[in-house]
């Protein structure tokens, strides 16, 4: 009797373990399939010419994504310049002021912002930047993307700084170090790995965004480094190539996708590396 009971429990146990493994495997499958597919289709397109030449007009063969790569890098730089200082400052404020009206408002805004559809953010950036300047521009794209980065940076900064023991701050204050220096020289450096990780993850998140760029950065056939002019980006270039009727351009879309995925993957891996290596033990 007892033996039967144990046998049944063991069988259930095995069944459960098997189910968990199977489901875990299933959830990993799409990721690997995507990577496999993009690599198979994209890697054959990648060559020197593809990386370093501009898109060619319809009818001409060849061409590449040089302007899109430069554009994406510029958009990342622009949006980081805007969102990193604001995001870190808001994160510091939240970790320093756990309660209070402003803190609660910021926290709520972050949640709302995180859930805002990216296309809506694009429209806002259009209203704020494109309409007044009367031109699509890299700047407006940067503004749109920086709004998308903000919630991630604010959240990770807050969470990181909250974990820094209060006694470190006390140690600094007790040495007569002014509050602002205590924050800048003791608190922030202690949380640097978490904050950097947050920034990189937010960059990885916006690198592939297309919707907010449709009516801000707009896209550009040519190489452009002027922030007040329309600029190309990888996701936009993928969209453009993929929507065309030409098989060669379709393969270009795969190639650009491959670059984008590699970029995002690299950012994520670097972020993991930083958070592991620079982790400060208290």
């Amino acid at each position, binding site marked *: 009797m007892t033996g039967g009971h144990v046998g049944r429990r063991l069988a259930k146990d095995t069944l459960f373990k098997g189910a968990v493994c199977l489901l875990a495997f299933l959830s990993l499958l799409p990721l690997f399939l995507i990577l496999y597919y993009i690599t198979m289709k994209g890697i054959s397109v990648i060559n020197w010419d593809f990386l370093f030449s501009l898109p060619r007009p319809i009818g001409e063969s060849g061409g590449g994504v040089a302007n899109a790569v430069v554009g994406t890098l510029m958009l990342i730089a622009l949006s980081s310049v805007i969102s990193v200082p604001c995001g870190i400052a808001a994160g510091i404020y939240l970790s320093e002021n756990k309660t209070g009206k402003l803190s609660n408002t910021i926290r709520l805004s972050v949640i709302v912002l995180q859930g805002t559809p990216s296309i809506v953010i694009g429209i806002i950036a259009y209203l704020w930047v494109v309409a007044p300047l009367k031109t699509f521009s890299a700047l407006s794209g940067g503004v749109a993307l920086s709004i998308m980065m903000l919630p991630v940076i604010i959240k990770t900064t807050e969470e990181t700084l909250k974990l820094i*023991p209060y*006694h*470190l701050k*006390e*140690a*600094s*204050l*007790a*040495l*007569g*170090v*002014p509050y602002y*220096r*205590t924050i800048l*020289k*003791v608190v922030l*450096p*202690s949380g*640097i790995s978490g904050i950097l990780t947050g920034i990189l993850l937010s960059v990885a998140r916006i690198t592939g965004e297309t919707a907010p760029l449709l009516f801000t950065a707009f896209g550009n056939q040519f190489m452009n480094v002027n922030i007040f002019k329309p600029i190309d980006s990888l996701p936009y270039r993928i969209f453009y190539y993929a929507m065309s009727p030409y098989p060669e351009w379709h393969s270009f879309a795969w190639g650009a996708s491959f670059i984008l995925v590699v970029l995002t993957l690299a950012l994520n891996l670097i972020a993991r590396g930083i958070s592991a290596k620079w982790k*400060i*033990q*208290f």
Partner: protein
Amino acid sequence: MEDTVLKVEKFSAFFGDNRVLKDVDLTVRRNVVAALMGPSGCGKTTLIRCVNRMHELIPGAGVAGKMTLVDEDIYTMQPIILRRKVGMVFQKPNPFPTMSIYENVIAGYKLNGIRMAKSELDTIVERSLKRSALWDEVKDALHRKGTFLSGGQQQRLCIARALAMNPEILLLDEPTSALDPKSTSQIEELFVELKRNVTMLLVTHNIAQAARVSDVTAFIYLGELVEFGPTEKMFTVPKDKRTEEYLTGKFG
């Protein structure tokens, strides 16, 4: 009386409406160890946190009365100037985890943006670590992170960090309560050594520690300074009944 380092007169401290210290009077002379003892929650930690004005960082905290540090009114000084003159060592060792041992010792200068020649800094580091009896153990590892040290070494590093600023007085907030017995006795020996030229105000839970290291002792109970006098006298013939009961373990 230039021999007085810290003078506390009719001093009260509050958390909101809650009065945690009641009209405390206390005088600490130069180069003595003054111990503050009493049961948990009696206000002894609050008292030393009022000396470097860390008390007021807590929302709702307030004070009344007077405190002077070498003839200067503590409550009219700028807190950041005051805190450079008053060193503090906390319950839990708290070296800065991003800094090396060397940088930790000179943190008070570095974080305040005071620039000095390398040789001058070297001298300060060596002297401070020697005074906190840590030099021999770390002199070959000055550029390693301070957090690699043992708990007792970390605490002596924090003492060196406070001493590096040449404070008028050193506040010690139960500095050995997180340490093992061996580290505790090392640090107690250090205090005895240090009092030749440093004034110390030591908060302790440990009656035996007060007896071992202090010259004068204050017994605080429910926010009131019950008795204050030479340690030897207090431990042998306490004047107040409550002191006697505390010392004999009837409460606390």
